[in-house]
C-alpha cells in the first residue's frame, strides 16, 4: 500500500540537473554578450537609419527588366558553371572519398587525405575564385574551378562518411570469393552507397547554383558579374530584376533536386 502511494509521487527534480540547466543558460547568454562587442551591434542606429532605408528601397521598385535577355543568358551561364563545377568534383571525390574512409584504407592514407580535403572545403568558393582569377583570368572557367575545388572537399567527406556507415557483411561476402581489393569496393561497397552518393551530389549541385551566383562578383562569370555591375553603378531597379532571376532559378532547382533526391533514398 505504501509502496503504491509512493510511486504516485512525481519524481523530484534533483539539484544537480537544475544547476546544470541554469549554468547552460548562463553560458548561452554569456556567449551572446561576448559577441555583441566584437560584432559592433547597434540596433538603435538601424532604427534611426530606417528612414534612409525606405527612400533607398524605393529606388529598387519597380524592377527594370529592360535587359532581361542579358540576365537570362548570364543565368544560364551560371547554371552551366554549377554543372561543370559539380561534375568535376563528383569524379574526383569518388577516389578521394574512398581514400578517406577508415574502413577501406589504413590510417596513414586516410589521415593525410582527410586533412587535404579539410583544407579544400575550409576555403570558401569566393576565395578560391579570387585565387583562380590570377591564374586563368576573369570568366566562367574561374568559377568552375572555384566550385570544383571547394565541392571536392565537401563531397569527399560526405562520400567517405557513407562508406564508413556501410554494412561490412556484403563486403566480406565478396572478399570470401577471392575478389581483389578493388572488386570488394566495386561489388561490396558501391551498390550500398550509390543512392546516398547520388543524393549528396544533387544536394551539392543545388548549393553550387547558389554559390555560382556570387562567385561572379569577383569576376568568375555568370549572373554575379551583372549583379555586381548594376549595384556598383547604382542601377537598383536593374539589381532587383537580376535578383528576381536568381531567386526564381535557385528555387526551381532546389525544388527539382529535392524531388529527385527523394526518388533515390
Amino acid at each position: 500500500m505504501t509502496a503504491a502511494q509512493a510511486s504516485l509521487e512525481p519524481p523530484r527534480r534533483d539539484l544537480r540537473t537544475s544547476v546544470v540547466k541554469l549554468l547552460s543558460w548562463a553560458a548561452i547568454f554569456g556567449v551572446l554578450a561576448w559577441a555583441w562587442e566584437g560584432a559592433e551591434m547597434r540596433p538603435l542606429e538601424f532604427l534611426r537609419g530606417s528612414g534612409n532605408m525606405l527612400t533607398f528601397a524605393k529606388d529598387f521598385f519597380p524592377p527594370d527588366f529592360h535587359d532581361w535577355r542579358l540576365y537570362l543568358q548570364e543565368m544560364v551561364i551560371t547554371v552551366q558553371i554549377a554543372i561543370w563545377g559539380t561534375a568535376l568534383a563528383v569524379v574526383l571525390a569518388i577516389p578521394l572519398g574512398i581514400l578517406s574512409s577508415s574502413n577501406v584504407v589504413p590510417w596513414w592514407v586516410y589521415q593525410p587525405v582527410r586533412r587535404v580535403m579539410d583544407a579544400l572545403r575550409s576555403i570558401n568558393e569566393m576565395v578560391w575564385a579570387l585565387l583562380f582569377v590570377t591564374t586563368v583570368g576573369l570568366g566562367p572557367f574561374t568559377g568552375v574551378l572555384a566550385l570544383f575545388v571547394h565541392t571536392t572537399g565537401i563531397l569527399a567527406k560526405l562520400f567517405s562518411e557513407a562508406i564508413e556507415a556501410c554494412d561490412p557483411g556484403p563486403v566480406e561476402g565478396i572478399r570470401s570469393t577471392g575478389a581483389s581489393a578493388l572488386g570488394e569496393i566495386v561489388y561490396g561497397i558501391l551498390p550500398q552507397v550509390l543512392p546516398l552518393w547520388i543524393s549528396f551530389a544533387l544536394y551539392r549541385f543545388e548549393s553550387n547554383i547558389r554559390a555560382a551566383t556570387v562567385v561572379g562578383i569577383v569576376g568568375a562569370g555568370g549572373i554575379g558579374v551583372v549583379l555586381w555591375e548594376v549595384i556598383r553603378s547604382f542601377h537598383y531597379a536593374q539589381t532587383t530584376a537580376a535578383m528576381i532571376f536568381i531567386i526564381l532559378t535557385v528555387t526551381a532547382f532546389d525544388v527539382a533536386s529535392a524531388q529527385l533526391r527523394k526518388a533515390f533514398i
Partner: protein
Amino acid sequence: MPPAIQIAHLDKTFAPQRGKQPRKALNDLSLNVAPGEMVALIGPSGSGKSTLLRHVSGLVTGDRCQRAWVSVGGQPIQQGGRLVRGVRERRSRIGFVFQQFNLVGRLSVLGNVLAGRLGQASTWRGLLSLWTDQEKRAAMVALARVGISEIAGQRASTLSGGQQQRAAIARTLVQGAQVILADEPIASLDPESARRVMEILAQINREDGVTVLVTLHQVDYATRYCRRVVALREGAIVFDGTPEELTPALLRDIYGAELDFALPTSTPVREAPPRAAERSRQPAEAFRLGTVNV
C-alpha cells in the same frame, strides 16, 4: 592426396575489450579434414567455431606464433599469424556461406552469384561485370540446382532468408569451390528453410565431392547430416568422432548450462523458448560484428 583442410597449432587471442581481460578464442588448435568429408563443428556460443572457420579462409589471422599454419587443398592460407601471398587467389576456390548471408542487397540474385567469378575473371572484366554467356549460363545452372533460378533477376534484398542463403550457396558453386565453409548457415532460418539448406549442402558434398565444414548450433542437424562431428569448447577440440559416439553425457560436458539451447526436444512447449532466445540474440550479435569490423 593432401588433406582438404589442415589446421595446425592455431592460437587466437582477441584484443581486450574495455575493462576486460584479453579473450583466448582458439587454443593451440589442430584439425585435419580429408577431401570429400562433411564435418560439423559444434559447441556452445563463444567456443570458437566461427572464429576457426574464418581463419580457414583467411578472413582473420591467428596469433603470431611460428608453429601455426592453415592450408586448404595442400596450399597454405596463413602461416605464423600472417596471410600468405596470393591468399585472394586461394580464396577463390573456397566457398564461404555466412549466417547473415552477406549478399549485396541492391544487386540482382544473378549478379550476386556471378560475383563468385570475381576471383577468377580478369580484373577489368570482373569490375565492369562483363560476364561471358558461358559464365551466365553456369550461374543459372547453379541457381537451378539450389532451386531459385526463377528469381534470378530479382534484387537480393527482396528474397526470404532461406532464398538468400541458397543464392549464397549458388555463389560458391559458381566459384568452383573445392571446399565450402558454412558459418551457422541455418541459425537465422526457419526450420523448413534450414532443412532445405542442409539438404543442398549435403547434396553438393555427396555429388560433387566438395568438402564441407559447417558450424551448427543445433546438435540434431549436426548428427543428421554429418558423418563426423567435431566439438569445440573454449577454443579447443573436446570431441572428434561419429554422431553415434556423441553421448548425452558428452553433450552435457560440451555445452554445460547451454545444453537446452542446443538440443531439440520432443515437446513443442519446451522447444519454443530456446528458439525465441536464439532469434532475439541475433540482431545484437550482428551489430557487434558490424562495429568490430569497421
